[in-house]
């Protein structure tokens, strides 16, 4: 990292760049960890200035569609959601009037990309607090918030039990939130009712396709 690189990182963090220059700098944050750290350093520094922005009353109801599984991902605002629902209802009525014998099916919902599942993994020994896991279908990942599950020198591994077979979802970090990208097969197959479990394994994870150590927590996935 030269001084020039540092200045470039600051320019990107401030938002001074545009067009190709901005695109190139953004790409570099993906390929150059030192540069990415420098950009983050500037962002954290400049965040101290945020205090000077003046608040403006925000509209009510703006986020009513966020976190609702069937809501569209891009916002057209509530009005659009309502009006498209009305339009769909009107169309449905029209179809029923014209063709009363046919069943009107609701539009298909792309569950894999919209569904969010939640599991509270209860500790097997009945003590301590449950460990929460969130399956974010849209992001194709599972997030687990847990600290100090595995004893020193061991690893905690997350599994989903599907068709009666444990399938590894990955290793949990020692503290805080672990985000694991879901394998494509699991991404499509995860659904309410399947059980998530955490086992204690050797460093690097189970040497086998199934858990080799004790299961310390488990719980079923539920839709929210």
């Amino acid at each position: 990292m030269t001084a020039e690189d540092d200045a470039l990182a600051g320019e990107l963090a401030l938002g001074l760049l545009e067009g190709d220059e901005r695109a190139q700098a953004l790409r570099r944050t993906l390929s150059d960890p030192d540069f990415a750290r420098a950009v983050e350093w500037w962002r954290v520094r400049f965040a101290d200035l945020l205090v000077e922005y003046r608040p403006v009353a925000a509209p009510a109801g703006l986020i009513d569609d966020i976190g609702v599984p069937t809501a569209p991902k891009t916002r057209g605002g509530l009005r659009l959601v309502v009006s498209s629902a009305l339009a769909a209802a009107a169309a449905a009525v029209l179809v029923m009037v014209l063709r009363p014998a046919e069943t009107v099916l609701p539009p298909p919902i792309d569950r894999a990309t919209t569904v969010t599942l939640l599991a509270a993994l209860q500790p097997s020994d009945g003590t301590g607090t449950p460990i929460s896991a969130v399956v974010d279908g849209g992001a194709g990942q599972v997030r687990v918030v847990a600290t100090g599950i595995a004893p020193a020198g061991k690893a905690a591994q997350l599994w989903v039990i599907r068709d009666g077979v444990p399938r590894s979802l990955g290793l949990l970090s020692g503290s805080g939130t672990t985000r694991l990208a879901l394998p494509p097969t699991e991404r499509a197959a995860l659904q309410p009712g399947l059980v998530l479990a955490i086992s204690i394994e050797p460093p690097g994870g189970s040497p086998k396709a199934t858990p080799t150590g004790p299961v310390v927590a488990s719980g079923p996935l539920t839709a929210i």
Partner: protein
Amino acid sequence: MKDHPADPYAARVAICELLQRVGTADRAALGTLYELTASSLFGICMRICEERSAAEDVLHEVYHLIWTRAGSFVPTAAHPMSWLGTIARNRSIDWVRGYGKRMTRPIEDADDIADDTPDQLAMLERTEEAQRLYDCLDALDPRQRDTLRTAFFGGLTYAQLAEDNGVPEPTVRSWARRGLLNLRGCVGDG
């Protein structure tokens, strides 16, 4: 609007707890977080987007990002309002870089609506690091300082800064880059 902690420490704890709950896909927590923080974040979006409908779209996107990213927020690493405010600022800049500013009316018109929730951003403590940043900004050549501050608050590009200042773009670039390097040297590695 009720039970909004006016004490900075209580507010910080409340926002951290809400973020953790949002991280577990707690929809009610997102609603409370919005009540508590939306006016602060909307102020950022309005200032940078300069247009209400755009700022609303960006604010919606910001809370959608918060909904999906809250699980990655580490409570000890930063003040939660820094984290939230940075998301709002970055998304707003993404928007204006993608669509451009329309410049349809003066910015000051944006602030005409009174808001009775405590400004959560105003509760960011003046930490040692923050004090150092302000001291170092004060020590800069005024043109360098003004360039950096104007760029930060308005989310402006070099081209816009050059036009506003009535100087060629390379001149503004030189002010900003020298300002950044001086600031980097003054603030140090923190």
